[in-house]
């Protein structure tokens, strides 16, 4: 029986069909496929079989890799990381620029705004050429950061509508990036979501050197950061729980379910009410 072989029913030379069979097929047990393929007339010889298998696996794996890498959650992860890199790089270069420009121009300043002022100048010496040119790079980086952020803000609701509703586009994208994709995020227990981005603190805790971290990147959520420290653990737990549920809905159904946000709002009202009761 060769019904479940990847080459079952394939005409020799049908590379697309072979690749699809490699990707989607399955079998309960492996068999001596090379010999069976020769018996079945799919290949003239074992060498011939391996040549066909090579083409099929290369094509199938290239297709699968491309598909997975192009997936929207992967693009969103790249975009949010690029936003962070652009921000960091722009600020770093802006500092260098401020020092250098301060040695040449009277109107010293700092940051990207100062870079914009310097970039608008007419350079009059070779030194000023370099300084103004550097300022232009800083401005370009900052502008690109803004465009990357707009991209994240536009794409996050498409990739993960419920997560974006609860967390905002940037935090949603960061959570997806830290988890390694929407599917891995959807499969995480909420306790893991709660400390995503706090891996160093978590490992220190697991090795007995530190208390358990209360929150990772979700600290940037208004419901965590804006809650008084004594209640932040509860807030982080509540937020992480709802974010985990939102990610699951996004991965498995993709429909927007406003009640998740309402549930979180109600829970947070209860937590924050403690403040007044003491």
């Amino acid at each position: 029986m060769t019904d479940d072989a990847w080459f079952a029913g394939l005409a020799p030379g049908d590379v697309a069909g072979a690749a699809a069979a490699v990707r989607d097929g399955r079998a309960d047990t492996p068999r001596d496929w090379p010999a069976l393929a020769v018996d079945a007339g799919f290949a003239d010889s074992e060498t011939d079989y391996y040549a066909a298998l090579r083409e099929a696996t290369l094509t199938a794996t290239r297709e699968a890799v491309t598909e997975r890498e192009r997936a929207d959650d992967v693009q969103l992860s790249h975009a949010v990381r690029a936003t962070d890199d652009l921000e960091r790089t722009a600020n770093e270069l802006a500092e260098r620029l401020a020092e250098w420009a301060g040695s040449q121009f009277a109107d010293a300043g700092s940051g990207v705004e100062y870079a914009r002022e310097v970039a608008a100048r007419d350079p009059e010496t070779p030194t000023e050429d370099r300084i103004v040119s550097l300022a232009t790079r800083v401005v370009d980086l900052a502008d690109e950061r803004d465009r990357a952020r707009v991209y994240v803000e536009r794409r996050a609701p498409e990739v993960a509508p419920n997560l974006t509703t609860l967390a905002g586009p940037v935090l949603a994208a960061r959570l997806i990036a830290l988890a390694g994709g929407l599917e891995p995020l959807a499969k995480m227990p909420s306790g893991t979501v709660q400390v995503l981005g706090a891996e160093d603190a978590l490992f220190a805790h697991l090795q007995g050197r530190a208390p358990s971290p209360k929150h990772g990147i979700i600290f940037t959520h208004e419901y965590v950061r804006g809650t008084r420290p004594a209640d932040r653990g509860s807030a982080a737990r509540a937020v992480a729980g709802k974010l985990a549920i939102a990610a699951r809905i996004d991965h498995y159904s993709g429909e927007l379910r406003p009640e998740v946000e309402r549930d979180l709002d109600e829970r947070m009202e209860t937590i924050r009410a403690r403040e007044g009761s003491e």
Partner: protein
Amino acid sequence: MSLPDGVAVHEFEGGEGLATQGPPVYGEPTDGPWRRWNPHRSKLGATFELGLDTGLAGGDRVLYLGAASGTTASHVADFAGPTYAVEFAPRPARDLLDVAEARETLFPLLKDARRPETYAHVVESSLDAIVQDVATRGQARVACVNRQFLGPDGRLVAAIKARSEDVTREPADVFADVLAELESEYRVLETARLEPFHADHLAVVAEPR
């Protein structure tokens, strides 16, 4: 050191080292047809370097689990026969594809080594060896569920990473548990810690029961 045909200790500029013959992959030193096999970048390379008797032979049919970007899989395909390289993550698999393109019988598969039913329709039975280097929890289980691909005289050559099982436990305790679980499907022939090449890794050579 017992090396398979096709693997040799070769004299390179700057000292001698393990080597195979094949197209270069990661900027490793070459000398004529020989390319250096860096044991610091390859757990199987370190296993050879430490002198374990892996039972691997030139021309073997191999299932490689956890091929990653193909650094080690490329050396295996150089000395072995048909080599099925399973990798789960798309990014390293992209590099693995380039390594496979340059070779005749290295078959890349984007599959999950914990689910052999998703590649048993492609990977043949009665293989000579499984080489395993999967950085996931449940490494013993991966070896056990893939035993079905091995012939009766086959060999499992695995690198077990303690940190993948549990970062908080003593590696020695983790290894003891992994070996105990392996014993349900395999007879363990030889083990060795891979220090100084790889921290908290155990090389395991085993045969199917």
